[in-house]
């Protein structure tokens, strides 16, 4: 069988083509994934998220370069940028900040548009991560779209989630809100050479202390970096590797993998069941239900209930 073998041989063109198939829901993509799936689960998956402009891409650039200096392990980067809600088009500009990785054949960078997904990733990001894992990339960085508070899908996909903040992005109440800070395994205050950096770091530490951990639990370290110059990258990656070790030793890694598998299985079931259900409806019935909701004659829950009853 052609493509799977080419991918395993390290053929980057074959890998790139396969990623496109997966992203496009092309029927040729999934059989290759089925063939190579037993080889997945080896990569360390690093999620990188944070507000727009906090320096995620620059940080990934430096961190990936650091990994390549430390070992011969190959590194992949999946960088997600938003699609336009109006035209579906996108400008994917994360490579601009990843120049240092150019020319290294042990690094594979792929840009993805979010294509309407709201959680900071795209619907097919998980499949592309599996593919890069299967292809033998030992570290896979997953960079989300610029994310604020609620875009937390990354935590379900990554082994280690790095949340990048920059000085001056909000007071200490922002740091207390639920959401993005809660998913951090490692917190980064980037642009630490800016004036308010120390205050930002203090606010983040203080909010973490309020959430005093149980014995044996992981307290997210706060690391200061200047990604532009590379300052602090070694400390960041040491923290990341400590987290990876903790995942192994504490059993938390196993728990996360289980939760991840369950959520993937559930979302696949949802997807397939909804498709099948809609195919089984008589012509126009779905549109009629939609119209009833639009015209405020039915709530969405009532309309769905009626459809389900009718189909039996």
């Amino acid at each position: 069988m052609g493509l799977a073998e080419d991918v395993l041989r390290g053929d980057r063109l074959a890998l790139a083509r396969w990623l496109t198939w997966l992203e496009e829901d092309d029927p040729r993509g999934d059989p290759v994934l089925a063939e190579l799936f037993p080889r997945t689960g080896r990569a360390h998956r690093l999620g990188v998220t944070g507000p727009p402009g906090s320096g995620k891409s620059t940080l990934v650039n430096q961190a990936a370069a650091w990994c390549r200096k430390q070992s011969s392990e190959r590194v992949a980067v999946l960088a997600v940028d938003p699609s336009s809600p109006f035209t579906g088009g996108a400008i994917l500009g994360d490579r601009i900040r990843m120049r240092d990785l150019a020319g290294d054949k042990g690094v594979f960078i792929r840009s993805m548009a979010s294509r309407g997904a709201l959680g900071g990733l795209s619907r097919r990001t998980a499949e592309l991560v599996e593919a890069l894992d299967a292809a033998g990339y030992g570290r896979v960085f997953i960079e989300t779209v610029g994310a604020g508070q609620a875009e937390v899908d990354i935590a379900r996909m990554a082994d280690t989630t790095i949340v990048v903040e920059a000085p001056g992005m909000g007071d200490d109440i922002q740091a207390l809100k639920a959401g993005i800070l809660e998913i951090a395994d490692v917190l980064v205050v980037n642009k630490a050479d800016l004036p308010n950096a120390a205050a930002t770091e203090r606010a983040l530490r203080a909010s973490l202390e309020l959430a005093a951990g149980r014995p044996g639990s992981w307290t997210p370290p706060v690391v200061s970096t200047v990604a532009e110059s590379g300052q602090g990258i070694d400390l960041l990656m040491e923290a990341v590797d400590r987290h990876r070790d903790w995942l192994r030793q504490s059993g938390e890694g196993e728990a996360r993998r289980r939760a991840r598998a369950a959520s993937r299985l559930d979302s696949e079931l949802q997807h397939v069941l909804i498709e099948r259900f809609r195919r089984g409806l008589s012509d126009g019935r779905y549109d009629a239900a939609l119209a009833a909701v639009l015209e405020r004659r039915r709530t969405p829950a009532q309309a769905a209930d009626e459809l389900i009853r009718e189909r039996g």
Partner: protein
Amino acid sequence: MSKKLRILIAKPGLDGHDRGAKVIARCLRDAGMEVIYTGLRQTPEMIADAALQEDVDAIGLSILSGAHLALVPRILEILQTQGMAQLPVLIGGIIPDDDVPTLKAMGVAAVFGPGANTEAITRAFEEAAASPKAV
């Protein structure tokens, strides 16, 4: 549903501003395409490698420096050796009329100068992506 077009917009060589490239990136985005933009001062090797990893449907090169007759053949050559000979390449920038036939003879799909109509450019990308070069 047809495949989403992915286009690489790249600036090879040393020229220092990328307004034109950004205008094109923006207009392709507004036409619903996914545009990978790589920034200034890319070497031919970097451009070919980005095209490979991103599995794009076409490449748009913006060249203002006058070095197009040196840069374009080099990029086409690398694309060929890396198994991407069929990938359409379009060029925009400051290109003397006399050089256009030379570039097309090398296999460039289209050449656009200053003031080119953005709808025509969008259409050219759509057409080029739909009909990869015969190899």
